[in-house]
């Protein structure tokens, strides 16, 4: 009976349940059941469409700064876009084969990621950090944004923020972010001397570049 219910592949099991799927660098896939993934992880979230040199370099810098391995995190659900299809997930995962480990999640927001990975350090660009701090991503409600930051802090999560170029071609740094004073400790900067990458995956797609 259970044989009929249980899918044969961990990816299908992941898609059927709210589990998270860990894909190791050597391709081993293990589903973590619903709930929390133990251990303080360092995660570099992204859509990886495609993965580019900036991602690889950022991972390397974060690994050397934190002294622990960094895994990529790809959420199949997205706040602003439709859910990824199975084929699309496979295509994106293939980019990491034999190179890096990836967590596949159903966690589009950082608060969801934090609930899944308490104690995690998220390696993000300053543009992403800006979105975490923007009330418009919380329905325009600043109180909700503050509550989310409070929750992130209580889950012992933090952000390692890399400098990114903004619309005015200026390097957006951690110090430029409107971080409420009570939550400054959640954000730590990677200095622009250590890392700076100004092209995103979407810009690379627009330029017609691949990996």
């Amino acid at each position, binding site marked *: 009976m*259970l044989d009929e219910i249980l899918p044969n592949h961990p990816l*299908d099991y992941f898609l059927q349940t709210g589990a998270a799927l860990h894909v190791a660098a050597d391709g*081993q896939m293990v589903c973590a059941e619903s709930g929390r993934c133990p251990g303080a992880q360092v995660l570099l979230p992204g859509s990886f469409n495609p993965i580019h040199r900036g991602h690889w370099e950022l991972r390397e810098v974060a690994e050397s700064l934190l002294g622990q391995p960094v895994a990529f995190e790809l959420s199949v659900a997205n706040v602003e876009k439709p859910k990824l299809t199975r084929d699309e997930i496979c295509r994106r995962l293939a980019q990491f084969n*034999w*190179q*890096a480990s990836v967590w596949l999640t159903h966690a589009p927001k950082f608060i969801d990621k934090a609930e899944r990975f308490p104690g995690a350090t998220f390696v993000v660009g300053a543009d992403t950090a800006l979105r975490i701090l923007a009330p418009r991503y919380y329905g325009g409600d600043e109180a909700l944004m503050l509550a989310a930051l409070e929750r992130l802090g209580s889950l012992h999560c933090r952000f390692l923020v890399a400098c990114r170029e903004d619309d005015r071609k200026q390097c957006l740094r951690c110090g430029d972010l409107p971080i409420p004073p009570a939550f400054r400790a959640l954000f730590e900067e990677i200095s622009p001397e250590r890392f700076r990458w100004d092209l995103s995956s979407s810009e690379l797609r627009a330029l017609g570049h691949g990996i």
Partner: protein
Amino acid sequence: MESSNGKKPISDPKPAAPKADTLARQLKDSLAKRRPRPWLPVLAILTGSVLILVFLAYWYYPRPPLTPLQIMALDVVGTTDEVPQVRAQLLTPLEEKTPRPLNGFGIIFHRPLTQKANDKPIEIVTKSDARGQAAADWPKPSTATADFSVNHVDPANRHVDSDLGRIFIWPKDAPILIVDAAETLGAEEVDEQASATLRRAAKEDWHIVYVALGSEQPQEFRAARIWIARNQAKLPIGPVLGRPHIAEEESAAQARRAILQSLKERFQGPMVAVVKNEVSAQISKDAGVRTIMIGAGAAPAGVTQAPTWSDVVVRVE
């Protein structure tokens, strides 16, 4: 005996005391003979009932589920004349000290998720043996290197996991360079000299085989394999071979002999092994493989000594 008014009493006269005593004794003896002493069977029944209750409690007590086993795909090296046989091994969790049965688990070999759209799907369903291993013949890939995937389905634990392995198909006369990864490539970072030598050898058409026998724990073998994979910019691609029978107690020396013998039997081209200790050097040499030993230790007779990787010259002799 008469009463004071001269009439006889209504009741029978009381028998004489000695007769009553005799009767009482007879009755007591008779009862003792007829009724067996009950405490023995009662005790036996009580003990039996308690044992049954204990057994039932043990049987129905909800035990914590066993940590699911994990599957590991093993790299395959074959010649162009052979039908490749893909293999996989079930691993017990590292913290588990008591062995558990590994046979009978559903193992499914199939093309990886990242297969090309025009590739015919393959799915081979098999079961693990007592060693937790499963193997299946695999269609010969059209390229020299191909990935395969293996799944392990454990319905009792509601667990499914999978792993990727690689198939390397080389010509029978391919020159092969066997590198002891655990001994020679460095602990944290790849030895730059090793990287340069190996990349040069790969350019000269040597086919690299990495051997990782340093640990008895399969999880550590996996870590070595991941380390090699993550350093693929510095290390040429090649199969990573570990102990053939992970679930059993097999020494590194036995495993090295088995791997070398298997390669020698199947490939007829030049073969060179690079190792770092004398025992490994002796085994490689005894297996008929030209052996280079890195480091300052005394190399056995017939083994070439190289102080560092940059002194290693891989050539056909």
